[in-house]
Each structure stands twice: as C-alpha cells, then as structure tokens.
C-alpha cells in the first residue's frame, strides 16, 4: 500500500531485466535469482534463472540484471560447472574479491576472467546487495525450488534505488584517413581508387 504524496521507492524498472540473455524471468518480486551454470534446468519460482557458461560476458549480464532489481538478495549457484571457463568459481571470486585495476576478477580460476562493461560501483553494489549460495553441482530441480522458497522467506528488498549499468563506451579519436578515403580503424585505411588497404601505424 502507498500513501498519497509519498513517492514509493521502486525495486525495479518496468523494463527489467535490462540486459538480454539466455534466461527465464519467473516472479520478479522473488528475493532469489538462480544461475544453473552449464546445466539446462527448469526453475519456476526465482526472480530470474538461466545458465552461464562464460567467465566474462555471462557474468556481466548476471550482475547487471541482479543489481537492477532490489528484490533480489540471494544468488543461488547450481548446476554443473562449465569446465575451463569456470563461471561458478568466477562468480564466487567476483563476489569475494572484486576486480583488480585491469578489470581481472581477483582469484578466479576461469580462463579469461575479465569484466569490461561494468563500472567498479556496479561490482561493489553486487557484493553488497546479494549473498551467494554455493550449491554448484546441484541439479535436482525439486531441491532447487525448496532452496528458493527457503531463501525467499529471508529476503528483504535492498534499501536503495535499482542500479542501472550504463555500458562503458570506448574512447574514440577523431577519424584520421591519412592517404586513404575509407576508414577501417586502428590506422588502417583504403584508397578506393586503387582498392588498396594499408596500415599507417
């Protein structure tokens, strides 16, 4: 119930989740999100659920979609770990240790564990907003639903505005065509009168 004259704080935008991906939205009011890693599992009662097979882009999408919904306070990691990429291990490392100056997820054993599209504040918010439940290996859908119910009862919305991740833009320099008239970037141009591509770097 809301009171007249008071703007109720919203736990999420109508457009939530903001980042597209291979996931299923269940009950957006739920306090639990589920990552099924390399397993394809049917999860019904979570706010959002889906697989994650990579230790970089997949993780970014999870963080962006979780912190933009204040209802989500628990992130359940289950399913089979994706060998080599180790997104489960990487999520745990991100939550525990954060990023170094190069954007590498500290302590991850994944192959290329870097974050490119999240500002440091987003990672800090992720660390504060959610608690990770490490049940990597669990594929029993019934047990997963029970865990969602159990943690959902403990969840209170995060007391802040939803965090919207703005994709970091790559700094661009003014176009320099050199001797060419068609630009490919990275100092590579084409002289279209001769259809000749050359590097000026």
């Amino acid at each position, binding site marked *: 119930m809301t009171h007249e004259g008071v703007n109720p704080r919203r736990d999420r935008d109508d457009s939530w989740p903001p980042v*597209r*991906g*291979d996931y299923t939205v269940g009950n957006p009011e739920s306090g639990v999100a589920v990552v099924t890693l390399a397993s394809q599992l049917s999860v019904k009662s979570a706010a959002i659920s889906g697989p994650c097979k990579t230790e*970089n*882009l997949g993780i970014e999408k999870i963080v962006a979609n979780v912190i933009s919904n204040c209802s989500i306070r628990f992130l359940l990691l289950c399913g089979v770990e*994706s*060998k*080599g*990429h180790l997104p489960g291990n990487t999520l745990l490392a991100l939550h525990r240790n954060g990023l170094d100056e*190069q*954007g*590498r997820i500290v302590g991850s054993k*994944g*192959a*290329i*564990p*870097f*974050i*490119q*599209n999240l500002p440091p504040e987003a990672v800090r918010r992720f660390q504060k907003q959610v608690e990770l439940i490490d049940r990597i290996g669990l594929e029993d859908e019934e047990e997963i639903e029970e865990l969602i119910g159990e943690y959902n009862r403990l969840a209170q919305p995060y007391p802040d505005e939803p965090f919207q991740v703005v994709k970091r833009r*790559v700094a661009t320099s003014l176009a320099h065509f050199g001797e060419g008239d068609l630009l*490919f*970037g*990275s*100092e*590579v141009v*084409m002289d279209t009168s*001769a*259809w*000749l*591509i*050359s*590097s000026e*770097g």
Partner: protein
Amino acid sequence: MFRFKREQSVVNVAGLKFGGQPGEMPTVLCGTIFYQGHKVVQDEERGFFDSAAAERLVARQAELSEETLCPAVLHLYARTVEAFERYLGFAEDVWSGPVIIDSADAVTRGAAAGLISELGYADKTIYNSINLGTDEAEEQALKESEIDSAIILAYNPAEPGVDGSIRVLETGGSVRENGLIALAKDLGIGNLLIDPGVVPLGSGAGSALRFSIVAKARLGLPVGSGIHNAVSAWPWLRHKEAATRRCCDAAAAAMQLLSAADFLLYGPIENADFIFPAAALADILVAEAVQDLDIWPAADHPLQRLV
C-alpha cells in the same frame, strides 16, 4: 573488394596453406568433432564415442573438401587428456590432414601438446589457442612440445573492440607485458593464425568482421574466426527451424569470408554440407572481384573447378 598493401604471408601446415591476398587462396574450413554435447560422444571424460558415426562425419568433410577444393582441417575438442588420446588415435586412422587441438581447460590443452609430440603428430597440429589467459604452466608445456602452429586468440575483454584486440596481439594491452604474437614466437610457434574471438550478437560480434581486415593490414598474417558462435549463441534464432538456422550460419560464414578471412572455424562438423558450398561461393565471388587488382586465384581454388 580490395587488396592489402602489406605482403600477406601464407602459412603452411602439413601442406595445407592459409593466408594470402583475398581471392588468392581458398578458405580453409575447420569442422569441429567431439565438441561439448556432440551426439557421437558417449563418454566425454574418457573419450568413448561412436566411431562409425564419427568416421562418416569426417569422411563427409573430406569429400566436400575434395569436391569444392576448399581445404579442410579436423578440429578436435576434448575435455580430458584421456579423451584426447582416443580422439587422436581415431584421427590418425581416418584423417590425413592437419588437426586443431582444443579444450576449454588449459591444463588439458597443455598436456595434449605433450601427447601430440610423443605421438609424432606435432607437424600436423594447430594449437587452439594462445590467449590472454595463457599462464606459465601452459606456456611451459607448449615450449617443451614440438608444436609450431597455433591460433592466437585476440579476445580482449579488458578492452573491447577492434583496437583492444589489436593491442593484445601487438603489446599485450593493459593486461600482459608483451603482445601475444611475441609470446607465441617465444614459445616456438612459427605458424601464427589470428582469431579475434567471436562474442555473442549484442556484445560486439560484428567487430570480428572489421578486425579481420585491420589485422591483415597491420600484421600480414592469416586471419579467421568462429563466427558460427555468434549464430549459435543467438537466443532468438534457437527456436527457429533448422533450415533457418543453417541459412544464418551460411550467411555469417560468407560475411566473414567477404571480410578477408583466410580460415573459418565453422562449428559442428555436421554443418559441412552447407558451409563448404557457401564458402566456395564466397571464394569464387571474391576471386572474380579482385582479378582487376592483379590478384590471381591459386591453381587449387574453387574458381578453377566449380565454374
């Protein structure tokens, strides 16, 4: 169409050639077998598989290569070293061309490099891949092996886009002290094949197309990609009919070839039936387009046989 000012090197792996100016050499097509979820695999940890079914797939790729003149490579994916042993034994029996060895697990890849050398298979092997995540243990394993051909993965999640990928090759970008090309040479790799690492649509998949042109212009090395990954990771397409998905795969492959790719990691080997004709078509169109630029197709180019 276009030609590059910089000389384009041609890499020779066990007699199979990658590189050159667009329109000069046929595109090398690499089909993956024993990939994660491949139906022929019965036990991916130990490497048990339906050998008759696998042999049919390999034979079909060879047949299409023979018919179109697009050279083929067998791309072996394995989860464990034990699986690699079985897969390599199979490849030795049924495949005479080069193989790519690949695993998501760096320890498995490194151990496979040693195994390849023991089996005397190194001169036919392309290691996939040397990348930003290559650590000292993997470097050491590769250095001690006899492998001298590798795919260099220019994927740079710390600096997205074409410039970031070029930096990781040339200087190591913000992550490594030296570029991956210098690292590969230090590890004894003489045959370098460049791959930007294709991310999903919406995350920058398209940059692989421009990267191919830029990388060839700057480095003069053979470039290719697994553009198929952008198609297979597209959730919207996943529930469409098989014919629709195949059309998109073929279109993506042709676009990558139009963007100067020398090789294509075309995904599941089952896709050979439509990828080889699509690639041959693209090769012929490109070759015809550059003849006014004084580029002539090789004697074993699809243009010489299919038209």
